[in-house]
């Protein structure tokens, strides 16, 4: 019996494994695929059946393994009455559908793939119904959406299959995600994701403030899957699938998953007004809409699809009523509906198979050609209509009884039984239509194929279903009494209500309603032409899909609008948003905390002259910038503001700050000037007034924001905090001399980092400049043309004389670097200036012909030498980059102090020279195109 300990996972996983077997079998022979699929199904049933006896004794079998505990996910399965019933339904109908499919699929279809998909779907469905852990349930739930997508799109070449598959996957997968949310919240309310815990905690859940949220999220998942209003539109579109798929997915199993979930969670979620209103209301709505639409469908499968929608609505409504007896009726109707609807789908498939069409307008009189099919169709559609002696009648009676019960004592609620009766009337009408227009009447001449009787392999499953319909209809208690008992008990998680399964309950109101439905239904069908006309005139245009489409369209329109707003690909636009939203975030944040904007630190005095000076300078430069159209001049004027600030620093006795500000300001302006080369010289006049005002507004706003923020910081006293830090840094930071240590001994480390970064930057700029073209300027901005002699004689002669001197100076600076200001960095800059001067004075081609060094090489060598110098000290046993010192006497230079760091300095020198030249020459070359035009040909030849 050991294997029984994990038989439930085996039942679930066997079909997945079987899918592989089937795929392999189909390589050998396509028919093998069908038989192996049947074998797998039988094997699964065999695994399940030994446990059935225990379930009938009222036991709940749970087999659980820890899996991903942190996420609350256990590999846990549960077998009780409800799940066993559904598992048997899935396996049993699966068995018959596979049998049917073996004969249904034409030789062109890929059988192995088809049955592999079917088995995968079967496994996922089994997973849904047998899961004990609700997260596991959601996983299998999504798997059913995926596998059903594969099945629906099996005939990919059909246009409608495409649309249907997409819609069904979209709706059900999205619903599944909503379900995931609901389940997570449910688990958080209960404190466990295990069903056994959840089912016990009904009261906690119902009283929890999040009850409604949970309910709605779970219902979205369930309703999407079970094609309940307003998600009912996807089911008819999924009918493009092969018929066995429709029979299996869209009548018996997948669409029942939502209902299963409602029944499963019934003890937890039901019993509130919200439940009654939402579930009951949506159930009734779906019942009516489905039944009404079914009546006007001319496609056989469309008719069946809408009738399925309507029956599912009926079951949902019953569960929504919330009484125990209603649950009995609901579960009983699930059984019955599965039997007759699967048979009807198969009949529709058989008709399609034999005649080549499913259009009721073309079909007719088929009883002559396929009598057995016709008889089976009569029986099963009678069951659908709720004719006495058949199973559909019994559960419909119960539904009518419950609709009366729910309306008891409430006047307005008496609309429920009336609506229920209308639903039944419509059901009768479309059942008659199904039989009459296909099998009775005159034989049509438009049929694409001459029909024959259905093959026996397809008839057998239909026959079995029809037999079930009759047997249950006649002897309900004997056939399904026990099963229904345990199913209901496990769904309710409570004692069974008193009910009686019998054909005859005496003459009572429900019976009268049933009879009314049968008679009026026939009348409705008889007067169908007038109804069709009314329908066409007023109602046909109303279609739920239309609203779905409208919703999607609206969403898309909104999305397009948003995209247009935010996806402009314009830098200006992007930076506006960054600035505006940072202001917004700051404001929101400020509003959230309770603190005054201005602190209590007293402000310094300010004399009038300083104020006037500052304001005056800023104001003047502002006006200059606004009025001036020349970018370079405007930029220089911007610098005034920075200068005004450094004046302010001087005024408040901080000359060091003033100097820093001054140099930073100047460097920034120069850098910006360089960038300006690439954009037109003049600012175009902005004509868009709105834009100007917007920009002014944003500037003022950000200025105000920064001012407020600065005020907030500066008006608060922070000295206490700094003291705290100073006290803490000694014990915490490892000594006050930390900064010194870094500066003195490990400076080299920084420098190595710096030159690496420099090298990277050099390479980066080089790479970026490569593909660039500069505009060629033959005239300056005031219209004067540039001199046509780019390399004046005096300058080039002088530069050649100066060159060795400059290099000498670089060497001198380099050598004295360790003791006095200087070193590799400065020396590198001097050397590169020396070379750059040559470029400037003599032209690129001239210089390059004489200076053949590869700058990449130079950078590489520099980095290598620097690194080796550092590593060298490690070999001698000192830390990386430690230096040793020695003194030498050299003529002229004098006593020099040679540290091993001098090698390191050499590396720095080389990198600096390399990078600087590479960048400058790179930029210079950009102008070479322009230059080459003004040069004479001789010089170009010289360069080549």
């Amino acid at each position, binding site marked *: 019996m050991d294997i029984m300990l994990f038989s439930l996972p085996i039942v679930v996983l066997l079909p997945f494994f079987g899918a592989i077997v089937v795929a392999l079998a189909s390589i050998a022979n396509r028919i093998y695929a069908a038989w192996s699929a049947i074998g797998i199904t039988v094997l699964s049933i065999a695994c399940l059946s030994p446990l059935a006896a225990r379930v009938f004794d009222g036991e709940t079998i749970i087999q659980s393994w820890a899996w991903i505990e942190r996420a609350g996910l256990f590999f846990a399965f549960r077998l009780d009455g409800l799940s066993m019933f559904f598992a048997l339904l899935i396996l049993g109908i699966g068995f018959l559908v596979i049998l049917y499919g073996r004969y249904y699929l034409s030789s062109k279809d890929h059988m192995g793939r088809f049955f592999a998909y079917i088995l995968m779907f079967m496994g996922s469905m089994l997973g849904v119904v047998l899961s004990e852990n609700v997260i596991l349930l959601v996983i299998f739930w999504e798997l059913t959406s995926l596998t059903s997508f594969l099945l629906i799109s099996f005939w990919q070449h059909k246009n409608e299959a495409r649309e249907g598959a997409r819609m069904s996957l979209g709706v059900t997968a999205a619903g599944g995600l909503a379900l995931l949310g609901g389940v997570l919240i449910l688990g958080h309310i209960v404190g466990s994701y295990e069903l056994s815990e959840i089912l016990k905690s009904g009261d906690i859940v119902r009283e929890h403030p999040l009850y409604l949220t949970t309910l709605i999220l779970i219902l979205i998942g369930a309703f999407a899957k079970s094609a309940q209003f307003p998600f009912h539109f996807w089911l008819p579109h999924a009918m493009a699938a092969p018929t066995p798929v429709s029979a299996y997915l869209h009548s018996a199993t997948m669409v029942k998953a939502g209902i299963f979930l409602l029944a499963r969670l019934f003890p937890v979620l039901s019993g509130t007004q919200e439940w009654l209103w939402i579930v009951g209301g949506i159930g009734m709505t779906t019942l009516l809409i489905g039944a009404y639409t079914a009546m006007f469908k001319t496609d056989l499968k469309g008719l069946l699809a809408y009738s399925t929608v309507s029956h599912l609505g009926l079951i949902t409504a019953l569960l929504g009523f919330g009484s125990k007896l209603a649950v009995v009726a609901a579960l009983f109707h699930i059984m019955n509906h599965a039997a007759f609807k699967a048979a009807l789908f198969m009949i529709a498939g058989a008709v399609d198979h034999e005649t080549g069409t499913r259009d009721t307008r073309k079909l007719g009189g088929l009883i002559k050609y396929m009598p057995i099919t016709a008889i089976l169709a009569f029986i099963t559609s009678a069951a659908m209509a709720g004719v006495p002696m058949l199973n559909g009648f019994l559960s419909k009676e119960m539904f009518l009884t419950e609709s009366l019960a729910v309306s008891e004592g409430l006047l307005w609620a008496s609309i429920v039984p009336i609506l229920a009766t209308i639903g039944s009337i419509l059901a009768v009408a479309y059942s008659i239509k199904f039989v009459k227009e296909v099998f009775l009447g005159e034989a049509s001449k438009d049929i694409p194929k001459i029909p024959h009787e259905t093959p026996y392999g397809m008839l057998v499953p239909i026959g079995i279903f029809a037999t079930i319909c009759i047997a249950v209809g006649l002897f309900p208690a004997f056939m399904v009494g026990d099963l229904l008992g345990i199913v209901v008990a496990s769904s309710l998680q409570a004692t069974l209500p008193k009910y009686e399964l019998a054909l005859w309950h005496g003459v009572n109101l429900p019976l009268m309603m049933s009879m009314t439905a049968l008679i009026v239904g026939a009348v409705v069908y008889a007067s169908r032409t007038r109804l069709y006309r009314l329908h066409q005139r007023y109602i046909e245009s109303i279609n739920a899909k239309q609203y779905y489409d409208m919703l999607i369209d609206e969403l898309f329109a909104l999305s397009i609008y948003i995209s247009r707003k*935010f996806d402009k690909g314009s*830098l200006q636009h992007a930076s506006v948003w*960054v600035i505006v939203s940072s202001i917004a*975030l700051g404001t*929101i944040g400020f509003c959230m905390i309770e603190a005054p904007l201005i602190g209590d630190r007293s402000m310094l005095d300010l004399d009038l002259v300083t104020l006037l000076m500052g304001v005056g300078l800023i104001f003047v430069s502002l006006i200059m910038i606004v009025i001036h159209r020349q970018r370079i001049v405007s930029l220089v004027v911007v610098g005034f503001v920075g200068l005004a600030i450094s004046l302010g620093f001087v005024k408040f006795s901080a000359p060091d700050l003033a100097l820093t500000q001054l140099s930073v300001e100047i460097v920034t302006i120069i850098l910006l000037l360089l960038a300006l080369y690439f954009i037109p010289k003049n600012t175009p006049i902005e004509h868009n007034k709105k834009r100007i005002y917007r920009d002014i507004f944003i500037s003022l706003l950000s200025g105000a924001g920064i001012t407020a923020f600065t005020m907030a910081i500066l008006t608060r006293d922070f000295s206490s905090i700094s003291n*705290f830090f100073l006290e803490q840094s000694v014990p915490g930071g490892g000594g006050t001399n930390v900064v010194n*240590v870094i500066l003195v001994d490990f400076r080299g480390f920084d420098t190595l980092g710096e030159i690496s970064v420099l090298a*990277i930057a050099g390479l980066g700029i080089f*790479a970026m400049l490569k*593909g660039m073209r500069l505009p060629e300027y033959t005239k300056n901005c005031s219209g004067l043309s540039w001199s046509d002699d780019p390399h004046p004689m005096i300058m080039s002669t002088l530069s050649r004389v100066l060159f060795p001197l400059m290099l000498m100076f670089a060497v001198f600076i380099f050598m004295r670097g360790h003791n006095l200001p200087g070193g590799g960095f400065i020396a590198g800059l001097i050397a590169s200036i020396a070379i750059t001067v040559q470029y400037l004075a003599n032209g690129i081609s001239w210089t390059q012909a004489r200076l053949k060094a590869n700058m990449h090489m130079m950078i590489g060598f520099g980095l290598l030498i620097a690194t080796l110098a550092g590593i060298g000290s490690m070999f001698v046993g000192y830390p990386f980059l430690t230096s040793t010192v020695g003194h030498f006497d050299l003529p002229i230079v004098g006593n020099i102090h040679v540290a091993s760091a001098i090698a390191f300095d050499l590396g720095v020198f080389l990198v600096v020279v390399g990078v600087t030249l590479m960048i400058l020459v790179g930029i210079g070359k950009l102008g070479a195109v322009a230059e080459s035009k003004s040069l004479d040909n001789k010089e170009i030849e010289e360069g080549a």
Partner: protein
Amino acid sequence: MLEPISVSLESLNLITLSPMLIAIGGALLILLIDLFKDNLDKTMYVMLTMLILFIDIGATFSLNINERGFFDLMLVDGISVVSQLIILVTSLLFIPLALTASNNRFHEYSYPEYFALFLFMVAGLQFMVSTDNLILIFVGLETASLSLYTLIAMHNTKGSHEAAIKYFTMGAMAAGFFLMGSVVVYATTGSVELYEVAKILQSQGVDGLSSIIAPLGGAVLMLVAIGFKVSLFPFHMWTPDVYEGSSAPMAGYMSIVPKIAMIVVAMRFFGIYINLNIEAVSYLIIIVSVITMTLSNMMALVQKDVKRMLAYSSISHAGFVMAALALGTTKANSSIFLYYGLFMFTNLGAFAMLWISRHKAKRFHGRYDHPYEKFSGMISAHPIAAVIMAIFMLSLSGIPPFSVFWGKLYLISSVVDFSAATGESKYIVLAIIMVLNSAVAAYYYLKLIVYMFLKPPVNELNLVYTNKSLALATVIGFLVMATILSIFYVQPLMEFVTYLVSSSGY
């Protein structure tokens, strides 16, 4: 003359630097090899880079957790290790994508500088995540960013230059915000070491909260800088353009690696505020992330190009993750890494599939190179490729049992748990928004599946798939297996990540 100061090598704990030094050393090695030997087969550089990354991974694994080094500048804690691992593994999977079919090599991979710059970028990112010193974070950020701009530009199409310039300009602005934020923090607390900042803010206690306005301003500035790098709405605007301009693997890489590094910074920085229960900051993060996931989802909905769609979808995923960051619980923080770890396989895979279909000279379409139409009917022409792409799309939409689902599950459940722990039901609203967003996202991912599986093929199917080579197939095969089989390794991965995150106190 200063006294010589001796600092023992042991106290420096240079081992904490070893992963970055390996990357930098490797980059220099590549430059040197190029120096001496010019005409080497470029495949060798790919191999060399992979080798260096392997060594780097080894070094990262051998780090001891919760150690400081180099004058306490370096901080090796759990989140540093886990994020370095994500960075390195992604890099390792990214680099072989250079080996496209030999008749269709892209020229940026023929420069050894490309690989050197790449390794410098990796080192920069590693620095970013392994320190809590704002200055070093900034240095790492800039090293990585400057290298990245160049790497993008090296793709050397018209679009890639535009992308690099846009990224650079916006990046410079964001760097400015980062610096201003750091300055404010320094001005108010006197320290750039985040652990010191935390201590100081803590010591002020409730009385000091009146002066919290300045640190709050710092947090806002920081949020802008971080939002730029993680591409949160509305600081995301560079993302689609830059992704479109850069090569597909680079776009995939950018959607993961720089983001995870910045998220670690965000975790360290905002963690201080969240621990102090300054609700304003967590609300700001949540507001931004909710806007991010919702609006970018909607924009992904209407994209006509798959690459742009993936760009917007990765923005939305980032929004998801940032929302968890605002909670500050261990579960939420570890779910971030789990999410990115799992997302990495799928998203890099999806971009790699786009890369396979990139033709060097021919573009599919004047405006877009990867419109949906390009993939229609792929199931009949390249069934395996279509199935792989479909798996990536399903995973991205969070459908079980594929990898991203687990991240999503763990992330949402951490939000739900948080609301249980604090008793604040408004976080449930956040969870619901996350769920609904996933549902909307399913639509546009499925759109591609519909095109691939259900639409009739276009005539120029030879355009799809020109890049296929063994190297690419191997990487993609690995990625798709990691996506499918996540069900088996997600438990140990989750344990590992949770251990690392909780041991570093987040």
